[in-house]
């Protein structure tokens, strides 16, 4: 899933302080799972904003809604009939949802309520960590199912570097060395010999470096 973190309330207030009618829109997908932008967080943010504006003696109307998704037209369209009632929208979706909202409602200011962080997993409740950077050319088959692009601080394809110590990365003792994990798993799979194959220079054109990406599937296109 896409993992996000709540923005500090002060930052959100600073963005929306000049508006008088706000709609806080949550998303029922990834940001709900990572507890940054679902129905619950919409309620918490809306209440905090109401309290803030009340204390400031300012009348600001704040409504709440949570859509099934903000990255699909179908669900964004649910706001069509009421969007004009609002001066602005605070979207608690990931950066994808915020942008699709802005594209869909061209005349309405849309502000992000979360910082979108990465594609990752729930290790345990309250702990999410990165697993994928969407490089567009998956190499997990060669790296024992552990991604050095997203999990090595230097994204080394032929790691580990000299900074790997006791299974941890040189930049933080709280961070596993991805290459230690790869080697441990290669050993477990009895494939340690694979380590000596040199990973070729990567074609990064399928990654961010190649510019904004589009996937077109003519077979499913309507």
């Amino acid at each position, binding site marked *: 899933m896409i993992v996000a973190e709540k923005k500090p309330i002060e930052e959100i207030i600073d963005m929306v302080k000049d508006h008088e009618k706000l709609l806080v829109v949550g998303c029922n997908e990834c940001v709900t799972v990572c507890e940054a932008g679902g129905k619950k967080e919409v309620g918490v943010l809306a209440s905090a904003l109401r309290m803030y504006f009340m204390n400031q003696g300012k009348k600001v109307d704040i409504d709440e809604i949570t859509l099934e998704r903000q990255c699909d037209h179908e669900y964004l369209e649910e706001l069509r009939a009421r969007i004009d009632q609002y001066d602005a929208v605070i979207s608690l979706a990931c950066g994808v949802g915020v942008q699709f909202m802005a594209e869909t409602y061209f005349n309405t200011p849309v502000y992000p309520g979360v910082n979108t962080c990465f594609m990752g997993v729930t290790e345990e409740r309250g702990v999410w960590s990165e697993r994928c950077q969407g490089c567009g050319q998956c190499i997990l088959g060669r790296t024992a199912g552990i991604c050095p692009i997203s999990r090595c601080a230097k994204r080394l394809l032929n790691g580990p570097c000299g900074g790997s110590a006791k299974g941890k990365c040189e930049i933080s003792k709280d961070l596993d060395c991805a290459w*230690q994990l790869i080697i441990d798993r290669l050993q477990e799979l009895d494939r340690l010999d694979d380590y000596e194959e040199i990973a070729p*220079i990567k074609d990064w054109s399928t990654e961010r470096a190649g510019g904004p990406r589009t996937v077109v599937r003519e077979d499913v296109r309507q």
Partner: protein
Amino acid sequence: MSTKTPSKLEKILDSGALAVTSECGPPRGSDPAAITRKAEMIKDYVDAINITDNQTSVTRLCSLAACIHLKQMGLEPVLQMVVRDRNRIAVQSDILGAASFDIYNMLCLSGDHQQFGDNPQGQNVFDLDSMQLLQTVRRMRDEGKFLGGDDIQRPPRMLVGAAANPFADPFEIRVPRLAKKIAAGAEFIQTQCIYNLEKFEEWMKLARDRGLHEKVHILAGVTPFKSAGMAKYMKNRVPGMDVPDDVVKRMSGVPKENQPQEGIDICVETITRLQECEGVRGFHIMAIEWEEKVPEIVERSGLYPRPQV
């Protein structure tokens, strides 16, 4: 391993003599005297001088320019290059730049993470890794081709080296990793600073078991401690460094004013012992901001005078 480049370092290594290299860190400013002064102190005691490339990610005068200063003094530089700061365009361009000044040695490195330096908020590149950098230089030199496939007019002629850290984890892939660097094109290796001699000798044995010592010239890396504080710092704070407790104890066991001499003694003892280690083809003396001690270390280790080639 037959001579392929005009490198003096290569000639000495191929002659069978033990090679001695050292390194100079460029200044955090633009005064060339900061490099030439250090080089003057050590030039008669070493065969080649590495110039570090923004080591520990702290911004400094660039390695290539510093190498050119050495070249203009008639010395033999080893251009260190990290892949942290350059994409493949910049890498190939800088290699050509070095080649245009007839720089004949290059050390291919990943580079410390930028978090350690003065720009922790900066982006990193890592378009290639150090293994792929080795392949790139070898392709440019041996095939006369850019990565993109086009021919290079007057290809670079560089001896290509890599670093090896026998002490980093996981230990079981440290020798396979050396084999991989050799397969990628490394012709010489400069190791991480050695304080744990038993572990280094074990690594060398495993390398010999695979015949790797005959495929690459291994230069054992040494750094003299200036103080017990430095020994403790290296032990506890520098990633990938293995300083055994008894070494720290030995440094702490002498009065502060004698600690620098103790550090030099340990360094000389290390070199003396490792001269007996089969497969060690020379020494890389990294006297960090202590270049004036290199002559003493070289002389006392019986490595002076240096061969003339």
